């Protein structure tokens, strides 16, 4: 890496980080000076303190939420992949089912969450279902697009060799669709965390959504903030994980 490049990267990290600390400091000072009530907006130092003291418990709840999100994500995406393959190969099936897929997608997950709790119980089952439901669609939509985006000349090349349908799928269509799939997986990774938390809001006794909800009932704003921070971190970790796998698998795609 050249000197200029390192300098550029450093700048990219340095500027947002300094801005972050600047905001924290201003926030801390303003609240201290005007004595703003803590139950509305606590000081960053207080939030940080709470985060450290309660870290074990927070980590447990975050872990639960991530577990729900990941299981939902995996189930949804395996299903979505199969459906995308079917849709890409059969116009009739796609025409028949597509309106239902759209209808399901446009129904807000928050409206369906109580039903899911009714069906799958207050344990993690209903959260997995909620996570699965929201992370399902990007993969179907993008997957079909990716499987169909094959270059005509590449298809001619395979046809000129009398390649079988299976060969065309495994050697051309599937690898060609991988960049599309991964861009969908990144979206659905963050969505699945949202789905799991929404599920927890409706009825749960663990998970980061539960922590946030309970702290609202007791006006524990500080605890609520720690929950929000952990939720954000969980979403970021999952996204980053998928992005790392993408970099390894879709290595030919220039970002």
């Amino acid at each position, binding site marked *: 890496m050249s000197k200029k490049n390192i300098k550029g990267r450093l700048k990219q990290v340095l500027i947002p980080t300094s801005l972050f600390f600047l905001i924290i400091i201003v926030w801390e000072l303003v609240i201290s000076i005007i004595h703003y009530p803590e139950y509305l907006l606590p000081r960053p130092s207080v939030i940080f303190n709470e985060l450290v003291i309660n870290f074990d418990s927070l980590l447990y709840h975050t872990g639960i939420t991530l577990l729900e999100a990941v299981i939902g994500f995996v189930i949804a995406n395996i299903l979505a992949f199969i459906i995308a393959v079917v849709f890409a190969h059969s116009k009739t099936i796609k025409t028949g089912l597509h309106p239902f897929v759209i209808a399901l997608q446009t129904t807000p997950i928050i409206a369906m969450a109580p039903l899911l709790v009714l069906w799958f119980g207050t344990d993690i089952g209903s959260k997995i279902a909620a996570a699965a439901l929201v992370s399902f669609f990007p993969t179907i939509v993008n997957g079909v697009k990716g499987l169909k985006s094959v270059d005509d000349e*590449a298809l001619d*090349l395979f*046809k000129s060799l009398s390649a079988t349908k299976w060969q065309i799928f495994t050697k051309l269509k599937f*690898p060609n669709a991988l960049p599309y799939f991964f861009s969908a997986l990144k979206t659905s990774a963050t969505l699945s965390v949202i789905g799991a938390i929404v599920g927890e809001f409706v009825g749960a006794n663990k998970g980061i959504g539960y922590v946030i909800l309970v702290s609202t009932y007791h006006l524990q704003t500080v605890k609520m903030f720690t929950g929000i921070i952990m939720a954000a971190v969980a979403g970021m970790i999952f996204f980053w994980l998928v992005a790392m796998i993408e970099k390894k698998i879709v290595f*030919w795609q220039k970002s």
Partner: protein
Amino acid sequence: MGPIISVRNIEKHYDNLNVLKKISFDIEEGEFVSILGPSGCGKTTLLKILGGLIQPSRGTLVIKGGSVKIARERREFGFVFQKPVLLPWRTVLENTRLPLEILGRSDAPEMPANLLKLVGLERFGNFYPNELSGGMQQRVAIARALSFEPSILLMDEPFGALDEVTRDRLNLELLRIWKKEKSTISSILFITHSVPESVFMSDKVIVLSDRPGSVQQIVDIDLPRPRTTKMKYSKKYLELVQCLRKTLKED
């Protein structure tokens, strides 16, 4: 022995659009034939019909005494397209090996590497396509087309997207590969819209008219082989280029 490819009254239309009209010509064993015509005259469609990728609406097509289907099943055709169409997730060597994989042939494991050597890319086998220049990518496409030892090479403006210097170099190289001692390629059908290229490469140039494409003229190119860059300054060459330019303009 009769012609290797015999085309009689081939026509192609899509709904109301006439693409090809009454195309007839022969390609002999060992001949290099160019199809020259303005863009949109149906050159590519004609090539795809010859390779069995598209069905003609009318007319007959005999390849090595049999149908196109039989010829395709016997792997008589190697295709080279306008774009190199290399698979970006495969290395250069893996791309060259693709046809053998599809055909399930494991009898010639050293073939892809030898072909890369033939096109001057032996050091690039482990590179990925996006690490190569356009000219190098098209060389890989040629190596790939040769990998299963077809007897007829169908080329659709293979060097059309390249700069002139690279194009001239690859033209010479293609002729060298074709005339090489162990070459399995008998005949080459070469589509181009460049008049000089068609003259330099071919034994015979088939000029197609504007849509619907029909055979306007068939010009024999009686320049000696092997062709050399020097010939491009010869009177004969320049005359032929001029003659073909005129034919194209008359359209």
